[in-house]
């Protein structure tokens, strides 16, 4: 369970989050949408304990991230898998080593068990046979998939994916979103996905949150968000060409 209450984050004079409140219940698949620079990545970093808010409270599994000790924060972070916007793959490690890295750090599994689980995770994201490549010899979509496999290798109770589909063609983008939905379905864990593929996100999410200027201006089930009367929501969804059934050029 994640609760954010009136969270403010500023970088110098630039406000990134501006009184954001959000509740995510266990097992939800929350899709986060919003225009560029509205604070989606910052929101992900706050949830994963990488950024401390200037004001406001952040609760993850009943732990207050603003007031807990370093050890408590580490305990919470062990249960959060994050896929970063820039992949964040360790360039000097092979694909297999990248994926098994969290296991070597956070678990006491034997080497063969770790390798088995990593190979399995790579197969789940469709990268069987790529184990010994270095990340700089992968395509953008393949890198995303390695990052996804690494983020969920420890079966974290919360999986945060920041733009897993950015810069990918629509087909690959949809494949990756489907993989995330598959992981959520198998593990029944909480998943938070930021994506600019609004159509794809609506098709997999149980709930959608729209971030606007550092605040969440709409958070509801996909159907409710689609029917929202708020001008900003309508405009954003129109721009994403979402509910335009029967739309043609003429």
């Amino acid at each position, binding site marked *: 369970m994640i609760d954010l209450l009136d969270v403010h984050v500023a970088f110098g004079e630039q406000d990134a989050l501006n009184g954001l409140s959000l509740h995510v219940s266990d097992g939800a698949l929350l899709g986060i949408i919003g225009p560029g620079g509205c604070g989606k990545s910052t929101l992900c970093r706050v949830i994963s304990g990488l950024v401390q808010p200037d004001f406001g409270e952040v609760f993850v599994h009943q732990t207050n991230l603003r007031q807990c000790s370093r050890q408590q924060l580490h305990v919470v972070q062990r249960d959060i898998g994050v896929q*970063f916007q820039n992949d*964040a*793959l360790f360039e000097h490690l092979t694909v297999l080593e990248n994926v098994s890295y969290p296991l070597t750090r956070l678990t006491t599994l034997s080497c063969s068990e770790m390798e088995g689980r990593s190979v399995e995770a790579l197969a789940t994201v469709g990268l069987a046979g790529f184990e010994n490549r270095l990340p700089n010899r992968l395509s953008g979509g393949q890198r995303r998939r390695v990052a996804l496999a690494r983020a969920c290798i420890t079966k974290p109770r919360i999986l945060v994916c920041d733009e897993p589909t950015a810069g990918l063609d629509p087909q690959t983008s949809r494949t990756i979103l489907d993989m995330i939905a598959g992981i959520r379905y198998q593990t029944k864990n909480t998943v938070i996905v930021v994506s600019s593929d609004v159509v794809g996100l609506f098709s997999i999410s149980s709930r959608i949150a729209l971030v606007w200027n550092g605040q969440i201006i709409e958070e509801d089930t996909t159907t409710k968000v689609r029917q929202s009367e708020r001008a900003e929501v309508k405009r954003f969804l129109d721009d994403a060409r979402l509910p335009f059934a029967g739309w043609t050029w003429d």
Partner: protein
Amino acid sequence: MQALAQFGSIIIQLSTQIGGTAMLLAQIFRRLAPPRFDGAEFRKCLFTMGYKSLSIMIATAFVVGVILVIQSFVFVERYGMRSQLGWGAGFVIIRELGPVLLALMFSGRVGAFTAAELGTMTVTEQVDGLRCLAIDPISYLVVPRFVAMIISLTSLTLIGNTVALFSASIMGDLMLEVDHHTFWSSLFSMLTPADFMLSVTKSALFGGIIAVNSCFFGLSTTGGAPGVGVSVNKTVVFSAIAVFVVDFYSTFVLG
């Protein structure tokens, strides 16, 4: 008015950087007692920073020794100070030129590389990836580099000093007909252990400075790939300035 504002902003920037490096240094020391850092990373750093810099450092040191003798040619000839050449070369190389020139070389090679490496890791969120796995970036990335750079630069300077002295003695024999015996006996009779200690202390200090600078600028990189370039540039410039400042004070204080 604008000049004043500019001056003020430079002062603020400078204070941020000095304060930031000082804080990083404090964090490093906190993790050194008792030592808590990654052994594998440390060995890797020692290999890339020390062993792999060996050839370039030896080449630099060799040329330093040669140039020193060529430069002193005129004076040695004019005043007939052949018997003092070993002392002169040893004094200059061990106390000053060796540590400083090799530190500048080291900062250009290893410091710049470290800043680029950590900078890239920062802008591609690899450092955040580590923090997410509850790995402390200072213990894992900074402390091994700090210790490795101090050890590497100190040993490289010891080796470099020796090479420079040998090249000076060879050059002295060839150019000034100072035989090896005269060279080495004047060197060992006039130099004291304090001179050697000064050399070692200086290079350890320089190693620490370059390490803290490069790690600080690397980890505080912002703004993507161009930001990495900026960090590398700052590392080399600030390391050079800091090396000279510390050189001045350590020569003053330690004699």
